[in-house]
């Protein structure tokens, strides 16, 4: 019997400081045991519990794509005790991971459809995974137009800057990076995510939209999407809650009868509309 509470061992291969405020770092991990790697199968969307003995565990979205073999990537915002501890780790350190946990984005439904990815702040993590997966040469032809709208308060807070540059050069992805206010050296788009979404989102017929970001951004983006004609079944959200077990039994992450860790974190707006607004 697999023990769902025991972390597997991974090694930190690379630490990348993502943002100028030095609060977000990405960690690329490799599996120490081959069997663990084989068992760790996922599609974009799930999260994992990262484990540091003496500090505990905390949930983080998986930022790597399954197309990046052997690499597990997390981008972690420093907010408290646990995240502080991760930030102090270095390349070569051993760290535990429990996962993959939760569901993935409903990728089969995106096939032969336009896909719009809307994200703000550091919630871009699992959407990086999704984007990376969809634009991979093995997968790109399964989807129609791919539009990415990604915003941050200022240019210094954007994640994955090198990758964004690369994507910007491709003609099979419509990338729209925006910052909240004009900034020196920034010649890109300026404006809030909801406004940009209104401008660049394709017609809602035959399109799915995936939204991930701080609550305030979500709050203002949903009406825009509804106005654009997206039905709630085709608006997809990824939620965050206080979590511990990640497997639907410790009891704390439910919204109504659904457990965000096990039944989510990915829900359609239609599903959420059926649940109490307790999140």
């Amino acid at each position, binding site marked *: *019997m697999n*023990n*769902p*509470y*025991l*972390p597997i*061992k991974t090694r930190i291969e690379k630490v990348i400081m993502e943002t100028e405020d030095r609060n977000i770092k990405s960690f690329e991990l490799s599996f*120490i045991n081959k069997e663990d790697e084989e068992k760790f199968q996922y599609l974009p969307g799930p999260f994992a519990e990262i*484990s540091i*003995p*003496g*500090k*505990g*565990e*905390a949930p983080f979205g998986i930022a790597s794509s399954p197309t990046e073999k052997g690499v597990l990537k997390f981008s972690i915002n420093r*907010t*408290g005790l646990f*995240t502080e501890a991760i930030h102090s780790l270095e390349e070569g*350190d*051993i760290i*535990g991971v429990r996962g993959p946990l939760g569901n993935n984005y409903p990728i089969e439904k995106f096939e032969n459809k336009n896909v719009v990815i809307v994200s703000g702040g550091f919630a871009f993590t699992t959407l990086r995974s999704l984007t990376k997966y969809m634009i991979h040469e093995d997968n790109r032809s399964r989807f129609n137009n791919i539009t990415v709208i990604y915003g941050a308060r200022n240019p210094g807070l954007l994640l994955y800057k090198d990758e964004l540059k690369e994507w910007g050069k491709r003609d099979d992805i419509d990338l729209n990076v925006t910052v909240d206010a004009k900034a020196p050296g920034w010649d890109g788009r300026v404006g809030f995510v909801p406004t940009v979404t209104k401008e660049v989102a394709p017609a809602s017929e035959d399109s799915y939209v995936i939204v991930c970001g701080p609550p305030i951004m979500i709050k203002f983006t949903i009406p825009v999407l509804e106005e654009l004609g997206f039905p709630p079944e085709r608006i997809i959200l990824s939620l*965050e*809650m*206080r979590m*511990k*077990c990640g*497997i*639907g*039994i*410790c*009891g*704390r*992450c*439910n*919204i*109504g*009868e659904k457990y965000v860790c096990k039944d989510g974190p990915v829900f359609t707006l239609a599903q959420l509309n059926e649940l*109490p607004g*307790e*999140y």
Partner: protein
Amino acid sequence: MKEKTIKKNELANFVAGLLSDYQVFAPAKEEESLVLKEMQAEGDIDLDIGVGPVNTKKSIKEFFFPQKERFFSYDLTKPGEMEEPVLSDKKRVIFGVRPCDVNSISVFDAIFTSDQYPDPYYIKRRERTTIVAIGCNKPETTCFCVDTGGGPFSADGSDLLLVDLGDEYLVQVLTEKGETLVNGSSGFSEPKSGVLQKRDGIVEEAQKAIKSDIKIKKVKGWLDNNFDAPFWDTVHEKCIGCGTCTYLCPTCHCFDILDETKGEKGERIRIWDSCMYPQFTLHASGGNPRKSGKERMRQRVMHKFKYFVDNNEMVACTGCGRCVKYCPVNLDIREVLKQIQVS
């Protein structure tokens, strides 16, 4: 189902016979309350469980889901190394458990033995346990098991169920584990004529003694549509938000996972937790979806009588009445349910 009888004065013998192969636990009086205590030697626990308070103060759940469970130990100087505990596989019999407690096992099974994430600790403890339940001839005033789908003689979850007939017990043999116990002893005989009728009379009388009359389906119907009802604004008002009702509840199974370190050594543990505490859902950002007593009381009632039913087709309450009896402010869940029922 097989039925046997055993004379009351044979019972101690039967239990003593188990001591060579099993750890035996039985209710024993400590100060004013009953606790499930391990029998160290023949006869050190008085098995006349028909007297005194009916049920133990703490429920049977800690035998399968202890308040603290160690997942592994670590040593900070040896990164990546985990030492897992060796769980005992010594067989044990828990004797004299009440139906509302054995019934709670199906709630725990639903949570801890799923195909996707079976809980090895729980399963191991379940496997090594045989339960001898005893029906309740005289329910307490706080009991309402009849309303939640059980009853003072409900056998679901037990291996043997004893019915007190006065000078003897009727023994219902419900599982193979139960059968093994009975086969290992010579004290059992076939029920004489009239015994089953006598049992039926006792069962009926005990059921009648429970007068709460809560209609659990009606309650569910209301809960389905009334998450936002003004009812929730006031029902929690006297609750002081302690965890008593959930910690003593035989069905509550929520927990926290954390690390405790002393010096270089430490362990990752699971401990009981409760939806009645504000920290339970507190986000790292400081936000909290259940920020006041209102949301937390609603979660407790909704979880037990709606969400759990939606997911597992049973209520997460066996009507044991512990939360009624031990709530420091007498917030009586039966009253809450009744108010809902007439809404």
